[in-house]
């Protein structure tokens, strides 16, 4: 077992995958509590489908770097979804469902009809379920992921107190002069970045799991916002590492293995939480 791990570690793409995977897991866990409590988890899910649609367009345009299209499109949709959430002509969740399925359908359609890639099924499969995408990142993508993850962590730490205040009580924050809309916008942009990053790790259909499970598990056991946040981060990183190791050693798909580990760990946390009560 150990010598096998040692052997795999010699492959540069395995080392990159572990580094990038850990960073992505870390930043996707940070905003989990905010997303869950503000009923934003569906926005995350919807955005992941949008990211898939953007990815399809990028693939068809044959760009050397997909993120140039995926990132702005996802961020714009995040901002739009957030706005429709507040100004409800079409109810927020309906708008999200609409955008997400439309993006998914058009994404797949575009890929099938116009794709110049030789491996459509591979692209779709890897993008949706992240079977191996984390192991097949290009150098540029690796650096981009590292830079963006570090930026997300930095932003989160810097705005930690404000994000807490706005998440806990938006009206109070607004009343005492905090720019709650600005912070909501910030959260939306950061979520969009996290989703585009996480698409590499677990694929766009499984992103929500990466965002929600750490937060929900931590909330079973811990009581303060700080401890929940710290535990979420540790939980997420541990599960991602474990999941990646299992999938590399056993040959299972990366994304679903990580999520399976997340689910198992959630069950343990739920049990611990129940016993502690």
């Amino acid at each position: 077992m150990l010598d096998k791990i040692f052997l795999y570690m010699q492959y540069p793409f395995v080392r990159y995958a572990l580094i990038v995977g850990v960073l992505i897991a870390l930043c996707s866990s940070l905003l989990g509590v905010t997303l869950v409590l503000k009923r934003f988890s569906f926005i995350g899910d919807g955005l992941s489908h949008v990211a898939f649609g953007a990815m399809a367009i990028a693939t068809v345009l044959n760009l050397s770097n997909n993120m140039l299209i995926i990132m702005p499109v996802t961020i714009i949709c995040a901002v739009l979804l957030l706005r429709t959430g507040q100004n409800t002509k079409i109810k927020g969740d309906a708008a999200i469902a609409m955008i997400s399925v439309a993006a998914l359908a058009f994404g797949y359609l575009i890929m099938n009809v116009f794709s110049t890639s030789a491996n459509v099924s591979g692209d779709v499969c890897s993008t949706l379920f992240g079977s191996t995408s984390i192991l097949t990142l290009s150098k540029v993508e690796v650096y981009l992921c590292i830079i963006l993850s570090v930026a997300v962590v930095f932003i989160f730490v810097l705005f930690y107190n404000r994000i807490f205040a706005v998440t806990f009580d938006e009206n109070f924050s607004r009343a005492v002069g905090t720019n709650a809309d600005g912070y909501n916008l910030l959260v939306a942009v950061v979520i969009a970045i996290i989703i585009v990053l996480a698409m590499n790790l677990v694929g766009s259909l499984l992103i929500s799991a990466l965002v929600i499970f750490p937060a929900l598990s931590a909330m079973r056991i811990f009581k303060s916002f700080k401890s929940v946040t710290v535990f979420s981060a540790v939980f997420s990183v541990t599960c991602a590492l474990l999941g990646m190791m299992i999938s590399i050693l056993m040959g299972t798909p990366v994304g679903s293995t990580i999520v399976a580990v997340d689910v198992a760990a959630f069950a343990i946390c739920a049990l611990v939480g129940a016993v502690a009560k």
Partner: protein
Amino acid sequence: MKTLKRGLLILSVASLLLTGCGNGSDVSKRTKNSTKSVEDVLNEGMNSSDEAVKVESPSSVNEIVKDDTQDEIVLTAADLYEEDPVEEELPVATPAPGVDVDLTVLSSTMVYSEVYNIVSLPEEYIGKVIKMEGIASTYIDEETGAIYYACIIQDATACCAQGIEYILSEDETLPYPEDGEIVTVIGVFDTYQEGEYTYCTLKDAKLVA
């Protein structure tokens, strides 16, 4: 047959032939471009029947080889290489030293990822000896009549597939395997240009039983 050896990276053949999920656009492009004449179709038929005939004897040859070298499969490979002047100095033993990239000892996720990396960054692998196990697949270019042989590797979900084309060495006594057969191939990685695309190939390849 051997005169038809040309290089091709067959990605889409794999997804089309082996998994049926998705759309092999590379293949369809080639088919669209070629105008199929009756002759071509006949040739195709000839080719496939040729193939079918050939397979019967090979399978027995295969068995014989297996029986002979049951305990020393690797030695067989080494012998084969020793006969090859280019690869003379390569020592071969488990887990196949002399092989720079041994895909047969990796898990399926790793195999797929490594092949993906080979295909996306081929220049870094040129000249390296690669050993891979996969499903044999042939593809006939209907325009030129050229036949390409590839070793296809699927990812863990068996949904996405990557393949590398191989050209058997002149000294290889075994014939090209039949479609769908599991084969282990050792060859020297190289790329070549055909039209606007760059293709990857394993040249001077040996089949390992």
